[in-house]
């Protein structure tokens, strides 16, 4: 190729599109076929747009595919091209049709003869297929499907290709399949790796080190089990191709006997603290026996950022005399340990953190209703014999720990399912919120005396069944956990963050420690004889107090109904309230039943159960519609912009300090901070003075990018407050979870002084000292 010619092959606009209706493609409309990558007049790639239906009924699904045919020796690239090349891109333009993601068949691996450069892709012929759905009520008689394909076509040298493919499909009363194309698609889709669990396979990954370190090699073993107890077939050739994994330079598997693979990889030298997953595609079997293609996803291990001090958090280190600047930092900042240190702390420390975090949960705003409820429980229990008190304390602790373990196993199950979850995630699930509401309303009505669970009232004292009383204590434990989760006390986020990135046993251990911490203060109060005696004597006030507590519980439901509004809009709130009325009716019926006996009692209880199930089925249907965003209170908060990485970078580039509030509607600590700290004049003035760009990252609904950002700082939940300085954009300062106006104002002041515009010579040293280094 002469230089003049190659000049003409620029990226933009320099590519001649040869629309060729070749003989071999006679069955396709001319517009659906194109060739590109002209190599001295000879196109190296031909593309065709295939559809597996000749007529489509509105509302039906069909499949579309782009077929590539390449000259011998030429190839295009997979979604992870490898060491060089470029992912093949298909952009759909399909009015009236929604097209799903591309299905990538298992790729081939190409190597240069010296083995130095490895890439993944397709040669010969390949089809990238996607599911499509014709929208209901399309009025036109034709659907137009267009695909703009960009591919890099390489042999030894590379030629960029652009293909514009388009065709029309008539709409009709029913969908008519094109058997030939459907068969071709089926054959190709058989080569698309499916999630391992779909076929009953299970992949577990055991790394040889508890964590990944930036710039270091890592090794481990991946074990694959086939469904039932079938043997995992042998593998051959290039059987594994990894996706691009953030923070990982390369990773590969080597067969180590059936179902066992040695993993070897290397972390990027400047990898951020994160919890990466191993993701990739695996080909089982041999050419002789036939292949099976699996998609593998398994958590690797927490990544320790470059320069991250492994072992102990930096906050624990005593400040050296030389470190005089550090002494200027506000005391509150001491809680904010550098994320790198957080992710690298040992299990023992994580358990200690979890335990104290659990204990602190008792003091968080969201546990208050339960605390009140428990205060009543104390007074009642102290009146009983010592032995019973111990049993109640044990039941309460068991309730807490049992729920924690249940949560932990749910976390593990969800994590295994590939969804990324965070502390408080259960409040992103409308049905869970509805369930908690129902429990609270039932509790409240119980306190009002609508029904009883055979656990209070002196009239029933004779009839009290031991287990009922203990069940009540256990239930209180459960409720304590459920209400505590949306608030992460200081240090708690750290422990849970650690747990989420660790192995299953660690998760269970950390959750148990959390539960013990949450249960301990209550148990101490009850079990230490002197303390119990100090509690007030029972009397008529107890009955009144109980009823007042019922209202406290109802108030909590108001908050949950508001959370539901955030999740499912006004309709969702109305549905929830309707369900709660039904719950009220059911408890009342149950209460009536308690006064009856024999068959009538059974009938009443049966009716109650029927009403509960029916109303639940009728009302609890929450679709994820976008609620109308309610204007937020608090003037500072009102000026916030929704968080996005690009917006933050733009603000930093403009020289503004940035404050990011990671929050959620169901997190009372977050709301508390927003109302009492972020809305104060002191903070507002500081923000105005330093021209702070204020962003809100709202985690009320699941949001993968926010979850990832939290994980980056070793957190699994909200609140989290980040302050970024334009002078050191890669060193965010993490503020403590319980804010004070002073802490916020000081942090943004430091960030502003660090701005490049204000930097004198050598001032950057001072700059870095104010920020925990990664």
């Amino acid at each position, binding site marked *: 190729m002469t230089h003049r010619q*190659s000049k003409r092959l*620029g990226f933009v606009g320099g590519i001649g599109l040869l629309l060729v209706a070749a003989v071999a493609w006679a069955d396709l409309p001319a517009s659906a076929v194109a060739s590109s990558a002209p190599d001295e007049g000879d196109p190296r790639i031909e593309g065709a747009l295939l559809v597996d239906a000749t007529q489509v009924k509105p509302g039906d699904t069909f499949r579309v595919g782009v077929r590539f045919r390449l000259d011998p020796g030429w190839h295009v690239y997979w979604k992870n091209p*490898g060491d060089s090349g470029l992912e093949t891109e298909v952009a759909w333009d399909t009015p009236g049709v929604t097209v799903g993601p591309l299905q990538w068949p298992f790729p081939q691996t190409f190597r240069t003869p*010296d083995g*130095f450069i490895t890439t993944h892709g397709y040669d010969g012929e390949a089809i990238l297929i996607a599911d499509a759905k014709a929208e209901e009520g399309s009025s036109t008689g034709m659907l137009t499907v267009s695909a703009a394909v960009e591919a890099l076509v390489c042999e030894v040298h*590379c030629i960029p290709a652009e293909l514009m493919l388009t065709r029309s499909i008539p709409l009709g009363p029913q969908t008519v399949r094109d058997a030939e194309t459907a068969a071709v698609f089926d054959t190709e889709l058989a080569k698309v790796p499916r999630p391992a669990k779909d076929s009953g396979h299970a992949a577990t990954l055991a790394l040889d080190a508890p964590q990944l370190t930036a710039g270091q090699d890592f090794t481990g073993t991946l074990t694959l089990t086939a469904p039932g107890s079938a043997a995992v077939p042998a593998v051959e050739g*290039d059987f594994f191709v990894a996706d691009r994994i953030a923070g990982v*330079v*390369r990773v590969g598997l080597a067969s180590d006997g059936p179902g066992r693979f040695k993993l070897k990889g290397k972390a990027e030298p*400047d990898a951020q603290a994160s919890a990466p997953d191993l993701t990739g595609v695996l080909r089982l079997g041999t050419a002789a026996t036939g292949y099976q293609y699996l998609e593998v996803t398994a958590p690797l291990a927490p990544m320790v950022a470059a320069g991250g001090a492994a072992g102990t958090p930096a906050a624990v280190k005593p400040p050296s005399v030389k470190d005089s600047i550090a002494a200027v930092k506000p005391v509150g900042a001491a809680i904010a340990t550098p994320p790198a240190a957080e992710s690298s702390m040992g299990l023992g420390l994580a358990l200690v953190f979890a335990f104290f975090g659990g204990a602190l949960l008792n003091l968080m705003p969201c546990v208050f209703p339960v605390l009140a409820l428990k205060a009543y429980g104390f007074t009642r229990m102290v009146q009983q014999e010592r032995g019973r008190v111990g049993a109640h304390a044990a039941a309460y602790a068991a309730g807490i720990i049992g729920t924690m373990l249940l949560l932990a196993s749910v976390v593990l199950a969800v994590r295994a399912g590939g969804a990324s979850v965070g502390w408080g995630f259960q409040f992103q699930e409308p049905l869970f919120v509805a369930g908690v509401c129902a429990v609270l309303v039932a509790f409240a009505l119980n306190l009002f005396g609508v029904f009883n669970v055979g656990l209070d009232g002196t009239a029933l004292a004779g009839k009290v069944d031991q287990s009922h009383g203990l069940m009540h204590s256990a239930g209180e434990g459960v409720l304590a956990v459920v209400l505590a989760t949306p608030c992460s006390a200081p240090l708690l986020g750290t422990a849970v963050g650690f747990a989420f990135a660790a192995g299953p046993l660690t998760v269970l251990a950390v959750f148990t420690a959390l539960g013990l911490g949450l249960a301990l203060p209550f148990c101490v109060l009850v079990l230490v004889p002197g303390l119990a005696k100090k509690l007030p004597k029972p009397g008529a006030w107890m009955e009144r107090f109980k009823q007042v507590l019922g209202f406290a519980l109802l108030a909590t439901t108001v908050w949950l109904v508001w959370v539901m509004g955030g999740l499912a809009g006004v309709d969702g709130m109305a549905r929830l309230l309707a369900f709660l009325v039904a719950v009220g009716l059911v408890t009342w019926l149950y209460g009536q039943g308690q006064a009856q006996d024999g068959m009538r009692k059974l009938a009443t209880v049966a009716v109650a159960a029927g009403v509960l199930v029916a109303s639940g089925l009728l009302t609890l249907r929450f679709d994820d519609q976008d609620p109308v965003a309610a204007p937020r209170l608090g003037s500072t908060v009102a000026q916030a912009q929704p968080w996005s990485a690009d917006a933050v970078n733009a603000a930093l580039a403009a020289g503004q300090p940035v404050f990011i509030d990671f929050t959620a509607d169901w997190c009372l600590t977050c709301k508390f901070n927003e109302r009492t700290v972020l809305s104060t004049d002191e903070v507002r003035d500081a923000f105005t003075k330093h021209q702070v760009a204020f962003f809100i990252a709202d985690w009320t609904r699941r949001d993968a990018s926010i979850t990832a950002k939290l994980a980056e700082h070793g957190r699994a939940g909200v609140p989290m407050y980040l302050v970024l300085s334009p002078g050191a954009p890669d060193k965010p300062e993490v503020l403590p979870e319980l804010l004070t106006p002073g802490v916020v104002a000081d942090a943004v002041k430091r960030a502003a002084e660090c701005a490049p515009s204000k930097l004198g010579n050598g001032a950057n040293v001072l700059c870095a000292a104010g920020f925990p280094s990664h």
Partner: protein
Amino acid sequence: MKQVFTALALGTLFVGAPALADAEVGKPAPTFTLKDESGKEHTLAQYKGKVVVLEWTNPECPFVQRHYKNDTMVTTLKGFDAKKVVWLAVDSTAHNTPEKSAAWKKDEGFPYPVLQDASGTVGKSYGAKTTPHMYVIDEQGVVRYAGAIDDDPRGKNAKPANHVKTAVDAVVGGQQVPASTTTPYGCSVKYKS
């Protein structure tokens, strides 16, 4: 490379892990002595005290052509203090000759030398995989950036973020390089096989 062939034969190859030390961020850069298109010798050691930008290039690669058409490299270089920053292009293409490089340099009119590495030894010691593949080496000879020239593989962004500019400015200003490793994009380096 023997290990790689062995591994291939066993069908158990790790993903492109050559048996060579690549240039790694935070580690001293591999030393080299190479002649440029005019026959003049350059060593890494002679540039101690300056920030060195290495650009793996190949005039036959469409990605390189696009950047030269848009003057990406020259514009980036112009933004630096010439007393502090040196730019060296390296061509590890097996069939490249000094004459080809000289002709291309005259055509495009850029000022920096094109180091001749047709044997591929230096390219492989750096682990250069693509053209363009960029490295920024600080005054002490430590690699501070490795990866792509910018964040725009397809040449579609109106305002691409130039990673090399960010890195050099950070190194010259005594700051941390924000993203010190990025995934390079482009054609593969056409090494001698």
